[in-house]
């Protein structure tokens, strides 16, 4: 055989991304030089993407335990108890590199992969959310002084990514119910596509990926194996991009959502037969990772006969078969003697289910092909004994955020024009153009879809409960101050979930960073992990899993450190789910402020607020500034606000709730107007909080632990009582009207515009950018 004749050399190992030390370790484990197939297997399993070799030492600092946690990190997805015998399986994962090389298929297969992670647990997927980051798509602002060819390319990437997510989710039949989108120049060469999937299962129906029972058959199910996606995990996802990255298109997989829908139905039906012992999806590193990980978790071995693997191309070598990342495939272990029942179910759905191997007692991954042994490696060595690196950390040599700060507008300025520009800014503007391409209602559980609430809300049929879900993460803040930015991501996600009336219940995280071999990037990573750990501990939110994506660099330029937090919330009473839209003319509008009553921070100074506002979306949108420092996160204040919001929604006192975040209070109030069914507007009167405060701080500042709520005027006394009880500041700041949208600050009208004009600007901006 040609392939077996290939002599493995240290140079070849280096081409596979293995360092000299790693290669030496391979030889030590095997007691000999590896075959080419074995080299391929080691290179993918020990890749950064599969082994977490740079992140492992830090990830252990995350809090993962809580009474509701059934399965923490380490399985296909995390699982939490949600009561009434049900549990929720959920996880977020990145598909950044493929989405840059081939936006449509990259994003589509990202969705496909995370869906498989959820339904291999035995859970039927009920929702998908996506966190997306792109380079600037408009050149109109000072912020986006990017050349036209760059913005055009970024629009092309956005268009392809959204199309790919829609293509996959819509056909598969899972609603895409939410997400977030942000833009910054650092994502031009490295967009982020993080997909989160949520599924529901009865507790006794959960499945795990632990092979058991010597002699049990190993079945391959789903699509046939082709040559696509070879080295997707090792060479695409575990290295920086260079000018030649487009040549990596063959490393991107191609998705078939119809096949995955069949696979879903067949898997759930086959699981019901009781004949399946363990199951795992073939994602990154395909047949290699499923076989050695299932064997390793179960403390057994697996022997595969590659001649039996269904193939869509001829002449495939063991190397290619073991490394292929063809989509829509699963590997499962069945009970010996009952494999026929499993095969029958798959046949009904028109899918291959073929016995390709068996469970052994020797702990080895053995790969046979044409009467030869192509690989024989201890499964544990591949899955659990990858090198672990304590990479060096160093804060950036020059402190960030030192650049020019935002210049305040002169005191008497009418801020209406600035406000209009902010509303048209892609990160703030309505995302309808995006989410209208997603089926966000299929399965008829969507109580709050995209844009309707601070988090998506899904009812759980046959119960009175509902789940809330959101994704958040501010890369700019994490770049300026990684730990603070990460704390803010957790706090915002938790606040969003509380705004719809749900108790934050568990979290999943997707950690998107640059090259971990750069000490600066590793420092950012470590700081962000600490920030997440602090905030999750303070707010009692366990992390149940997630994903690390390193090497988000193009031509040496790293992305902003971008941890994305997905927080799941639980509502005991689905009928209490609260939206962000104002409901009735004449309702009173309140600002809830967790820090107002027991502020630990000293009085704000104008220098502080200038630095703070310089880190805001407003500063970036209007002046192209990303500087200063993000607002300090007061976790105790966040906790107080969350508890108050939960108490108020449980009592049914509120008509709307919306947290203050990107774009500040003015955008928050405006969004509650825009979402209202019959064109409601608002009049807001703000006092100057201290003599140094500027109007722009009051309107556009993004300090956390705050929410805008509305309620009937006669609920005031009850609201005041609850706010006092929970130690949260409560300030009546205006009312819901049918007049012009007006904000008065310090006795002066600073924004005054027909609400329609604001709404049209906000609603039409993204669509006109994307379709012009």
């Amino acid at each position, binding site marked *: 055989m040609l392939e077996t004749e290939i002599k493995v050399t240290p140079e070849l190992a280096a081409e596979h991304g293995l360092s000299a030390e790693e290669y030496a370790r391979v030889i030590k484990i095997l007691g000999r030089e590896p075959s080419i197939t074995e080299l391929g297997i080691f290179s993918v399993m020990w890749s950064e993407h599969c082994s977490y070799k740079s992140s492992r030492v830090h990830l252990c600092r995350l809090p993962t335990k809580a009474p509701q946690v059934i399965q923490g990190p380490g399985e296909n997805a995390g699982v939490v108890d949600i009561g009434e015998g049900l549990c929720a399986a959920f996880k977020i994962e990145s598909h950044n590199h493929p989405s840059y090389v081939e936006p449509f298929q990259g994003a589509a297969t990202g969705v496909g992969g995370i869906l498989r992670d959820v339904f291999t647990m035995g859970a039927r997927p009920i929702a998908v959310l996506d966190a997306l980051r792109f380079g600037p798509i408009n050149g109109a602002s000072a912020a986006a002084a990017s050349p036209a060819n760059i913005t055009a390319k970024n629009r092309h990437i956005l268009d392809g990514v959204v199309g790919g997510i829609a293509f996959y989710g819509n056909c598969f039949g899972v609603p895409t119910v939410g997400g977030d989108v942000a833009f910054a120049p650092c994502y031009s060469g490295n967009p982020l596509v993080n997909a989160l999937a949520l599924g529901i299962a009865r507790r006794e129906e959960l499945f795990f990926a632990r092979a058991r029972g010597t002699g049990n058959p190993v079945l391959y199910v789903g699509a046939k194996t082709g040559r696509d996606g070879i080295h997707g995990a090792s060479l695409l996802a575990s290295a920086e991009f260079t000018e030649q990255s487009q040549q990596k298109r063959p490393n991107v997989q191609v998705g078939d959502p*119809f096949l995955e829908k069949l696979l879903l139905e067949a898997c759930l039906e086959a699981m019901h037969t009781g004949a399946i012992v363990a199951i795992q999806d073939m994602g990154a590193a395909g047949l290699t990772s499923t076989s050695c990980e299932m064997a390793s978790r179960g403390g057994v071995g697996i022997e595969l006969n590659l001649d039996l693997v269904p193939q869509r191309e001829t002449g495939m070598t063991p190397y290619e078969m073991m490394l292929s990342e063809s989509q829509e495939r699963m590997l499962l272990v069945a009970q010996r003697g009952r494999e026929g029942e499993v095969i029958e179910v798959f046949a009904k759905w028109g899918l291959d289910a073929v016995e390709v191997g068996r469970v052994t007692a020797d702990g080895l991954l053995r790969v046979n092909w044409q009467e030869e042994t192509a690989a024989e490696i201890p499964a544990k060595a591949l899955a659990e004994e990858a090198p672990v690196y304590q990479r060096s950390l160093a804060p950036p040599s020059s402190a960030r955020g030192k650049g020019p700060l935002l210049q305040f507008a002169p005191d008497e300025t009418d801020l209406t024009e600035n406000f209009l520009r902010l509303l048209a800014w892609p990160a703030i503007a309505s995302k309808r153009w995006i989410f209208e391409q997603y089926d966000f209602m299929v399965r008829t559980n*969507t109580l709050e879809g995209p844009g309707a609430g601070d988090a998506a809300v899904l009812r759980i049929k046959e119960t009175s409960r509902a789940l809330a879900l959101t994704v958040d993460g501010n890369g700019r803040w994490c770049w300026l101050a990684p730990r603070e930015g990460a704390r803010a991501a957790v706090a915002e996600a938790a606040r969003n979930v509380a705004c719809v009336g749900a108790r934050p219940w568990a979290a999943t995280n997707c950690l998107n960073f640059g090259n971990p071999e750069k000490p600066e990037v590793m420092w950012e990573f470590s700081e962000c992990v600490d920030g997440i750990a602090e905030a999750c501990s303070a707010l009692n939110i366990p992390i149940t899993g997630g994903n690390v994506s390193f090497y988000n660099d193009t031509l040496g330029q790293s992305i902003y450190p971008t941890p994305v937090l997905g927080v799941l919330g639980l509502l005991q009473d689905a009928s209490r789910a609260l939206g962000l839209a104002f409901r009735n003319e004449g309702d009173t509008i309140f600002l809830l402020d967790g820090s107002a009553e027991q502020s630990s921070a000293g009085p704000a100074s104008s220098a502080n607020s200038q630095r703070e506002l310089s880190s805001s979306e407003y500063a970036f949108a209007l002046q192209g500034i990303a500087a200063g420092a993000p607002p300090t996160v007061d976790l105790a204040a966040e906790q107080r606000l969350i508890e108050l919001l939960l108490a108020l929604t449980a009592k049914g006192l509120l008509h709307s709730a919306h947290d203050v975040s990107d774009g500040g209070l003015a955008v928050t109030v405006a969004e509650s107007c825009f979402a209202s069914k019959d064109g409601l507007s608002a009049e807001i009167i703000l006092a100057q909080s201290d003599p140094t405060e500027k109007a722009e701080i009051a309107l556009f500042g993004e300090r956390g632990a705050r929410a805008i709520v509305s309620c009937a005027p006669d609920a005031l006394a009850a609201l005041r009582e609850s706010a006092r009880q929970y130690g949260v500041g409560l300030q009546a700041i205006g009312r819901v009207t049918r007049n012009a949208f007006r904000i008065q600050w310090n006795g002066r009208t600073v924004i005054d515009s027909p609400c329609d004009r604001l709404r049209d600007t906000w609603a039409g901006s993204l669509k006109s950018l994307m379709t012009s």
Partner: protein
Amino acid sequence: MKFGVVVFPGSNCDDDSYHVINKVLGQPVEFIWHQSADLAGADAIILPGGFAFGDYLRIGAIARFSPVMRSVEKFAKSGGLILGICNGFQILLEAGLLPGAMLRNAGLRFRCLPVYIRVETTDTPFTCAAKLGQVLEAPIAHSEGNYFCDAPTYADLERNNQIVFRYTTPDGRENAAANPNGSLAAIAGICNRERNIMGLMPHPERASEIELGSADGLVIFQSIVQWLSRRGESGQHETRTEPAALRV
């Protein structure tokens, strides 16, 4: 009275239709696998939304050859009620059980949003419980819902009062902005001449519970129930009392 919901490989609104019939209306309902020739004794058949056979080749082009479709055609000829929703409507067109065809949406993108449709005739088993001119709010979710037919077919549809729903504004006016996909004459749903087969692009099963935003779509299922129970009482099996129905 019994409903049957056909399941093709790739159907994904089958559970949603089942849920409404079973849990909201409290009527008996059964899934029917596409390879079955047996319609399980159902009095009304629903072809649900989704992506039957992945929409490969051409939407509905493969589904129409599923064994179940022979039985559905026979059932239709005998006056049985058939409701095609979204992909189900597309399959009915492809099978020739309803006239016309679907084009890509004007704008060439998948669109998911609530729309408003006006009841153009109550003289069908699917709208007999609605009021003429009543406007229903129900969502669409499709990329090919741009209904098209040639001029003679359109004249036929008009003459025989086969246009069941049109896209309108919430207050029942027709205009370009209210037509979400560019459909000819704002057509959202049609029936056959015999009036026992209806297809529509909006999803009434997603608009049958107020907590989901609208319960307007329920009237379509209620009409079927009302029509079937009246037929049961009178022992009649014709789909329509007017002479037009006899021109088979």
